[in-house]
């Protein structure tokens, strides 16, 4: 039998075996006060508020107690109420809680419980702790004077992010959150994912970017999908009178645990670039403002009279935007490309040549956490794909072996079992590994001989052997290819290795929307007459800049002013990530909805409409 029957406050309840009493109660609408428990995190039973009476004698925390047949639980005895009030008062009066000065006023689980328990007078004097407030971080403020030591932030950093930046240290009332070995947050190993502040029940860790913007409870909340990369994380965006107050991760129940990265949580709010309201035309050293329809005219004029047109789109757009842009550009005979598509084309070509089937690709990246081994080419994904990086870290905490190969420093240095730094990480090392696997077991001596014959191969035979052994031992290994590996040869050797060993592959594109796989792209003229660029909210626009430098005339469509728009001849307003709507395809190939969060505030209402017009004007 998988269900158990027990009794809560006189009510018979059945629940699935393995559930905690708290979970079962919540399922039946019985709420028990709590501060440390969080659905995305392990239960540590720290705050003791959820204590219930078990079988008329023991008092135990319901967040840790498993359901069992015949249990008799009381959740609201006079004793329990007294204990809870006492604990709440102890917490409230021992830390500096002055709600009216607190950023979390109104969004605080402690405050809610104080109201709920009608605590309006106090038995204990204040203690006035004086921990220094840490505001060294770009986005996060940590104020230990309001911290209730529930440890949610520590567990989030540990279990969800796999980063272990935060810990609890110090005994008794000196117990507090410690960052690394006691450094300020801004100088720590923090990856700025903000998971800690998302789970913090109080105002002890909060976002600088959301300060003074409003109470979340009074906001509208929309669930949408982040467009910043191909992970396609779900986000809950809180808005008040048309302004974004805060962004939180939405997928609490998925394995991501509701994680977001810096690009999803903070960057969109930190972007202070000036919005583009009108079309800007730079001609003969002068800057002119035009209306949108004049801009449309000018763009079509340039497109119609030119032969070599390069159209280049950001990857951080919806499928629909990309479609509309591609359609308009092709109507004008342009060559069309999207950031990251080049890598995809190489990959397709290589796969066809070596006859590699789709089955080799991981279809759900959470599989990373189940792998025996991970072989990671290019560790910069630590910064470019932070969520994926967190899965790798979490996997290594659970015993997965990690080998990293990078041309520079290993960004996973404190997680990898073996890190190989080799200037040309791709071809040679992998070629040799492949050869060894094909020829069967080789000795170190053999390898030394081979590598000296091959000449210029600065690979240590031991490294080769280690990779070979690791791959041969494992039953489930995953090869992850970062976005810096872009040349055909490297891709080919890595794919060959995967094929030889039956390893699974995750190949990471720089760009976001995986829809680009469906778009026929062909690569663009390097020195076009006209370059037309549709930018997204990305920070790194280097290849876009490179393209317009070589163009006779350049058109940039963008939501905000940037170095890129300053270089363009014609600037057309565009939408921000939160003004777009449509769909996006994530790394697992799943189509997610993108909701419009705020009404367009720039000089354009519908980009798709604009491109439809442009397509007609040839």
């Amino acid at each position, binding site marked *: 039998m998988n269900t158990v029957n027990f009794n809560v406050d006189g009510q018979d309840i059945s629940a699935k075996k393995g559930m905690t009493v708290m979970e079962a109660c919540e399922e039946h609408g019985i709420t028990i006060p709590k501060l440390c428990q969080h659905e995305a995190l392990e239960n540590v039973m720290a*705050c003791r508020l959820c204590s219930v009476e078990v079988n008329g004698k023991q008092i135990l925390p319901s967040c840790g107690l498993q359901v069992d047949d015949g249990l008799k639980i009381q959740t609201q005895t006079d004793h329990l109420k007294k204990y809870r009030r006492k604990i709440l008062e*102890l917490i409230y009066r021992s830390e500096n809680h002055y709600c009216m000065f607190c950023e979390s006023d109104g969004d605080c689980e402690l405050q809610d419980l104080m109201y709920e328990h009608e605590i309006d007078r106090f038995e204990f004097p204040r203690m006035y702790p004086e921990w220094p407030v840490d505001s060294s971080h770009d986005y996060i403020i940590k104020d230990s004077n309001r911290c209730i030591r529930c440890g949610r932030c520590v567990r989030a950093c540990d279990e969800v992010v796999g980063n272990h930046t935060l810990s609890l240290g110090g*005994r008794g*009332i000196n117990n507090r959150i410690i960052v690394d070995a006691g450094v300020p947050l801004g100088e720590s190993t923090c990856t700025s994912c903000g998971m800690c502040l998302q789970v913090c029940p109080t105002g002890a860790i909060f976002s600088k970017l959301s300060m003074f913007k409003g109470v979340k409870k009074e906001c509208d909340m929309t669930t949408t999908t982040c467009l910043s990369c191909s992970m396609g994380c779900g986000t809950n965006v809180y808005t008040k009178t048309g302004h974004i107050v805060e962004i939180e991760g939405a997928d609490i129940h998925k394995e991501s645990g509701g994680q977001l990265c810096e690009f999803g949580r903070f960057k969109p709010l930190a972007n202070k670039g000036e919005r583009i309201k009108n079309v800007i035309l730079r001609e003969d050293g002068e800057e002119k403002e035009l209306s949108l329809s004049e801009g449309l005219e000018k763009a079509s004029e340039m497109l119609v009279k030119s032969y070599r047109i390069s159209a280049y789109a950001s990857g951080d757009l919806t499928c629909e935007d990309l479609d509309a842009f591609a359609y308009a550009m092709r109507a004008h005979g342009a060559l069309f490309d999207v950031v990251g598509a080049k890598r995809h084309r190489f990959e397709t070509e290589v796969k066809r040549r070596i006859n590699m089937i789709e089955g080799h690709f991981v279809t759900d990246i959470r599989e990373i956490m189940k792998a025996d081994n991970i072989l990671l080419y290019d560790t910069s994904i630590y910064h470019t794909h932070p969520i994926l990086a967190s899965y790798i870290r979490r996997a290594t905490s659970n015993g997965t072996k990690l080998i990293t190969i990078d041309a520079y420093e290993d960004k996973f240095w404190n997680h990898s079992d073996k890190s190989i730094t080799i200037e040309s990480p791709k071809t040679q090392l992998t070629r040799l590994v492949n050869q060894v696997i094909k020829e069967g077991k080789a000795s170190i001596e053999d390898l030394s001989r081979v590598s000296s014959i091959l000449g210029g191969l600065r690979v240590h035979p031991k490294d080769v052997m280690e990779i070979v052994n690791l791959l041969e031992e494992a039953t489930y290994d995953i090869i992850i290819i970062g976005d810096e590996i872009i040349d055909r040869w490297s891709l080919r050797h890595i794919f060959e290795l995967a094929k030889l060993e039956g390893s699974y592959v995750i190949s990471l594109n720089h760009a976001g929307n995986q829809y680009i796989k469906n778009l026929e792209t062909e690569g663009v003229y390097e020195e076009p007459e006209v370059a037309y660029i549709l930018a997204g909210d990305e920070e790194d626009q280097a290849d876009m800049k490179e393209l317009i430098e070589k163009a006779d005339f350049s058109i940039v469509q963008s939501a905000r002013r940037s170095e890129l728009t300053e270089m363009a001849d014609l600037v057309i307003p565009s939408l921000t990530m939160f003004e777009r709507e449509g769909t996006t395809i994530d790394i697992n190939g799943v189509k997610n909805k993108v909701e419009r969060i705020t009404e367009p505030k720039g000089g354009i209402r519908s980009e798709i409409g604009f491109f439809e017009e442009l397509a007609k004007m040839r």
Partner: protein
Amino acid sequence: MVRKEILICSGTGCLSAGSEEIEERLMDELWKHELEDKYPLTRAIKRTGCMGPCNLGPMIIIRPEDTFYGNLKPADVERIVEEHLLKGRVVYDLLIEDIDGRRVEEFEKLDFIRGQKKVVMRDSGDIDPSSLEDYLKVDGYMAARKAIMDMERNEIVKEIKDSGLRGRGGAGFPTGLKWELAAKEISDQKYIVCNGDEGDPGAFMDRSVLEGDPHSIIEGMMIAGYAVGADQGYIYVRAEYPLAIRNLQKAIRDAESEGYLGENLFNQGFDFNVELRVGAGAFVCGEETALLSSIEGKQGRPKYRPPYPVQSGLWGKPTVINNVETFGNIAMIIKYGSEWFRDIGTEGSPGTKVFAVAGDVENTGLIEVAMGTTIREMINIAGGVADGKRFKAVQIGGPAGGVIPEQYLDTPIDYDSLKEAGTIMGSGGFIVLDEDTCMVDVAKFFLDFTQDESCGKCPPCRLGTKRMLDILDKITKGNGEAKDLDKLQDLAETIQATSFCGLGQASPNPVLSTLKFFRDEYETHVHDKKCPTGTCKALVEAYTINEETCVTCGRCIEVCPVDAISSGENTYVIDPEKCISCSECAKICPVDAISEGDEK
């Protein structure tokens, strides 16, 4: 001719009392008198573990006659060598005076020793703990040999179960049952862990066993390993015990090289290894789940049970964790049988218990007694209350325990009787308090310890104990209010009911038990703003000098740290504004002319 042996106690107490200097002087003297033939220098002087009566250190025993010399000063050594060793005459005035004033020659005849029953401390003070050879001479590893060669695994478990041995780490859980549970678990790997964290303030029982007889612990663990099917043991010792660590390291190394640890022990195909783990020394790390986490290299914080360590302990594998003293009993039970063990002690608590006796008694130190010995008898073994003062209470069980007042002096010491009397056995703290002790101050001392040692996880423990301490502090400073005693009671109840681990749950005990037995003393502090024993300085009134008795010797002026005393006409006068009631003057006055408060 019988070869003589000089045992010199090198337990931690004696080392700090200067035993090393005594040892050097002994060597010098032997050398000077060219005695090295009769007393080969490397063998005649044997450093032993703790002998027990720590306040008599430095101390030596000369064998075979068993003469005991204590409280030695370096200058005494010359006489001992010249008189005792050369001429064979006992140096009478260097013998220790026993309670009745008689000088006692033989160690075993000391009252302090006669009342004891040594099982766990059998070898400590008797053998050189750094010598495997010495251990083998006292039948060392014979019990392990018997267990592994002649006994079935379940026979061993049964023997331990039958012995009725209960865990000496505090909770008194039946050891045999724990082993049985672990033996039943099916797993590719099991572990044995020895808990040597010993965090109670003033406790040093485990330390002395580890220092004085390390092999006996290894042997106990090995037998446990064989019985439950574990091949790896860990001994967790706190870093503050460097001598224990050194002796254990040596013992493990020696046992390994002599084949008492390692593979295929006694040719029976049984492997057993022991590793030492040194802990950071937080009190809560002594709690078993916290200790296991700490061995795993994680933060030493208590974890939720179930699962219990016997099901899922170190790295998720079945683990038997026992206290040092618990393991210290094992070899003896295997050697002499459970019946023998049951004959010692009481029905519900067979065997002995080692106590670290401290406080206001004549002789402090380690005392091992059979369970069932009464508290009164214990105090007598320790020579009675010091300085002829009146007994007030005894604190048993350390920070988790409570006080026992005079009316319970005849309570037998066993798990159940102590519980009934309102305290716990604990790990063996035994602090005798005389009439001058303030009970509020005692409660404050223990609470200060626990609030400081709380790991900080649970608000009731982290903050509640701090609040209780603040209230006690307020009371001892003369600012107590009537409702404070209720507040204490209330907080105590919440902390007991809602804390996660034993540290928090038991932390209010010292306050509750002093409140229970000495409530009037609390009330005097609160209502009359007085500390009856004069301990709480803020509550003591200024001292005054009785004009009639004062002989104007002027000694009080010299000792007063705040210059509150000046000379008057026929007497001296204390300025009540300046007086801080330190009582220094009253102590020095040769005619007892100075007393607290207005003159009587």
